[in-house]
């Protein structure tokens, strides 16, 4: 006789805080408190198990707000301006996406819109929503669902690749034209820096740091 799924409801809760399992090789470890700068690595496969998270929920919330401001700027301002025979062309992210759509590369337009606009936007808004409640010690409405969605969209945000793309495009276009990076390019550079700060943050910690309130 199989126990029903509901019977596992209570079993794991006591284990959550004490045990962890390596994502890469399934080795089980007992959790230990980490000091500042510590990184726990798996003895079997050497993957990172856990890093000391020194950025608290409030700081994280502030970071997300900063990212939102910079993201708006990066999308509103032109990224690169190109001059040729006295004519000037400004490019924004959405200008690029529209142009690829018109030039019969709809697939590329959709990829760019997803990885550079919609997924980063969703990630920011979701994190903002979860943290706005989380810093008050509460789980936001729909917490579980949003956390799962966040897990799935995280690998598909590519703003930092785009920054490198801007750099390469400037160099390439510079061979023939007069090119100047615009405010948008700098906003993207700042965005890349903020993303680097964020990459050290394990978002799964929100499950533990924002406790479920007893019903």
């Amino acid at each position, binding site marked *: 006789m199989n126990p029903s*799924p509901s019977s*596992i409801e209570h079993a794991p809760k006591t284990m959550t805080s004490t045990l962890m399992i390596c994502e*890469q090789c399934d080795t*089980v470890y007992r959790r230990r408190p980490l000091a500042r700068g510590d990184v726990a690595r798996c003895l079997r496969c*050497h993957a990172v198990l856990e890093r000391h998270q020194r950025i608290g929920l409030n700081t994280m919330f502030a970071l997300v707000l900063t990212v939102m401001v910079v993201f708006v700027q990066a999308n509103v301002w032109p990224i690169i301006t190109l001059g040729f025979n006295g004519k000037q*062309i400004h490019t924004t992210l959405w200008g690029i996406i529209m142009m*690829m759509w018109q030039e019969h590369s709809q697939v590329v337009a959709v990829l760019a819109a997803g990885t550079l606009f919609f997924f980063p936007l969703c990630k920011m808004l979701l994190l903002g929503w979860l943290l706005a409640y989380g810093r008050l010690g509460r789980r936001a409405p729909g917490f579980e669902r949003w956390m*799962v969605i966040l*897990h799935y969209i995280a690998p598909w945000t590519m703003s930092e690749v785009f920054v490198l793309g801007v750099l390469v495009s400037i160099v390439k276009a510079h061979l023939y034209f007069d090119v100047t990076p615009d405010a948008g390019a700098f906003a993207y550079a700042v965005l890349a820096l903020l993303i680097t700060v964020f990459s050290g943050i394990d978002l799964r910690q929100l499950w533990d740091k924002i406790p479920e309130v007893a019903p």
Partner: protein
Amino acid sequence: MSALPRAHDLGLIGCHICGLVCRDTHVEDAACPRCGGTLHRRKPGSIARTWALLIAAFLLYLPANVLPIMRTVSLGDVDDNTILTGVIELWVKGSPDLAVIVFTASIVVPMMKFLVLGTLLLSVHRGTNWARTQRAKLYRLVEFIGYWSMLDVFVVSLLTALVQFGFFSQVEPLPGVVYFGLTVVLTMLASMSFDPRMIWDCKDEDE
């Protein structure tokens, strides 16, 4: 039991979505009590799925390299660029360092993904103990650098939007870039569907 117990030995199962450690109840499709995701000991159908995505990615990778990705028109002079000629142009005309970056992102990284994932799949299939730590490291590397291949797709998009002077000068995307973008997406999906835990699932002889 070895000094490093694995989840299966202890009757545990780690949620792939939220990381929660749960007791393995051997119920099919049990849900994680924390996030509601389905609990699996290993990613379901991992080997078949990864093979399918990898082969599809490789099939698209051929036209992505052979077909031109970008057309530059300058005073009626038409020039079609493939990924490789784009790199060479960058190298010859001014910035070898960027050429190296583009070469790495658009040629080395995708090729490495095919080789590494192919090797991982074959070795997991044969259940070999060979170089497990290194193979695990290679997998993590591929996971980490995979999406940087999108670089060339963004460069073509940016140049297309920038250079629009009709007869004098124009840049147009060509089908190669579409194939290349799809290759990157498929290889990312392939590396996501591979389950690195399988590397360690063979019998231990050396421990």
